[in-house]
């Protein structure tokens, strides 16, 4: 059975791109969220194997969402998607419980490597 993924990003463009990369690699994108709050709610409903999380989103940012999700499920496997120059935020996200990160602009190979590491 293929792994399920929840893709969280406020930009449709980014969501589409990540979904494409992951679907082509055989993952099943089961849901999308465009705010942190939505990400938390969708996680509760869907219990996906993997979450990709943008850092900056309206109505609860990605880091806050990571914190919230990990509080309910410490084993949640969350991959942060960050822009260049957001190292401090990525560090914060890792401290909050994110398991790995990729830096935009995405190279599909790097995204998949990170996903493999997380799902190991």
């Amino acid at each position, binding site marked *: 059975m293929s792994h399920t993924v929840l893709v969280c990003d406020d930009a449709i463009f980014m969501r589409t791109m990540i979904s494409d990369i992951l679907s082509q690699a055989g993952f099943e994108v089961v849901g999308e969220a465009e705010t942190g709050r939505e990400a938390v709610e969708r996680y509760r409903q869907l219990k996906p194997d993997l979450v990709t999380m943008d850092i900056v989103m309206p109505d609860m940012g990605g880091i806050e969402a990571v914190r919230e999700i990990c509080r309910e499920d410490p084993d949640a496997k969350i991959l942060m998607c960050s822009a260049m120059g957001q190292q401090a935020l*990525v560090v914060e996200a890792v401290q909050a419980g994110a398991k790995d990160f990729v830096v935009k602009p995405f190279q599909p190979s790097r995204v998949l490597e990170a996903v493999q*590491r997380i799902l190991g």
Partner: protein
Amino acid sequence: MDLSRYAALFLTESRDHLGACNQLLLDWERDPRATEPVVGIFRAMHTFKGMAAAMGYANLTELAHRTENLLDLLRSDPGLANRELHDLLFQIVDALESGAGEAVAGNDAKLEFSGLIGKLDHASVATQPTGSWAIPARSAEPVVGVTGRAVSIAIRPDAPMRGARALLALRKAESLGTVAAVRPAPAAFEQDEFDGRFSFRLESEVPDEELRRLLATAGDVASVELSAETAAPAARGAEPAGDATGRTRQIRVDLRRLDALMNQVGELVVAKGRLAELVASHGSPDLQALSQRISRVVAEMQTEIIQARMTPVWQVFDRFPRVVRDLSRQLGKRVAFQVEGEEIELDRSVLDEIGEPLLHLLRNAVDHGIEAPAERKRRSKPAEAIIRLIASRERNVVAIRVQDDGQGIDREQILQRALKEGLVEPGTGVLSDDQLLRILSRPGFSTATTVTDVSGRGMGMDAVFSRIRTLGGSVHLATEAGVGSTFTLRIPSTLAILRALLARVGEERYAVPMMSVAETMEFNPMAATAVQGREALLLRDEVIPTVHLRERLGAQGKRAVGRRPTIILDVGGRRAALVVDALLGQQEIVVEAFDSPRGMLPVFSGATILGDGVPVLILDPAALV
């Protein structure tokens, strides 16, 4: 076993661990549900308990033990801790810190912790999910030195966000065993300059090969080096970052020894200069060769000692987070305090001198700089203010910035006060940042509308300035209404010996620190221009006001006509052209302690004795630009 031999070591290491507790408590408070801080404090407390027990300090051990038990309960759910509990833990850390000093002085038996232990018991009950009164008993464990492996990890240099990657590797390690002595401190990971190399000690059952493989799964790991390690842990900072292989051997040296050595080398530098002069005027070639050799050796010696005295700024910065926290709480303000560049090094004596000025600037930032949460909300700023303390290297000086995102300094209010006190010409318009700074640095000029016990009395802004100037440094201010203020201190990284340009005016010689000399040129009065009634010269399209040292010092004689040598001074971007009678060349000078006599012109920062035994005053460039 004679324990007194270990007392000093116990004391320094305790401070390291308890200092770490303070930091972690702050982290915990900021993020009450995070487990890392609790786990970290638990570990530090455990180590401290072990050391105290080994020293035979029963009372200290008891308090640490009880605290550890409570932390053990909280590890599974840090969110159970409330504000009172955090406060209690802060108190305990303070008590242990002062208690450690007392114990070493032989007063462990007199330590009285029953009040704190009572509160601890109470808290433990409140925290026990079962509501049981029982506090889990723990037999005193034997103290073991840290055993395990030293692990050095390098993140691939081309990897994005090496710091975040390093943190992932560290978390991986934490999932495999107990991690200690992380160098550099994880706080450094967030710095863009972090090169991706770090090390730590790991106690874990996982075999070498497996460990290598697992750590590499953090991604972008270039190499993992392991080595067996059984030595007792070195105190924090005693080891240079990136070297946990145990090959660097360290000793602790009393600072006074280094001071004495530095003074002796200072003397040697002066004697060397004199010798070189004598040999140059009437020495044989043999003597000249010998003199040159001595010069080289002395120079190397000097470099070594200066290096030995260099100390990372965190040794002073470490106490600030706690100060800022306590103060902001007391004033009902919310502050995120961020520190950067903790690993930057300064001469120990310089470092000792800047603690107080920085403390003053930080207090000012909390008290006057940032607004109360309600006010911030009104201005649609985040309720939590940000105060940053940033150290960075700028050529041969170290810059330390205290930055707040508060309301900025009220130019109008300062202007009114300055007008009333006659500090500025009537009719002065909007004050520039420089003018503002000059007014604030006047002795006795305080802007605190009400005197609190925080600021408004005590070390004033003027004291900050004179302290920094004595160190040969400068202060710079940038402030914007509604956006915040930044004070920048620029300080030479080492004090005792500096390169100076010697200049002559009349019969007197003066030394100008090279760190403020941008270049030298010739001043041609015919080519001088005037800007706003002040004489100035043009240098590559830049207008630089002139300062005639002769007039400034009130020296005898008239301003010379004709071309004159001129020193272009640069202090943090502010420039002046210092016109002198003659330039005498560069020289190393040993700065002597200097008490400026009353009535003396405030343009000198110190004195030195030249090779020929004649004392010479050192000019303060910041007072001239």
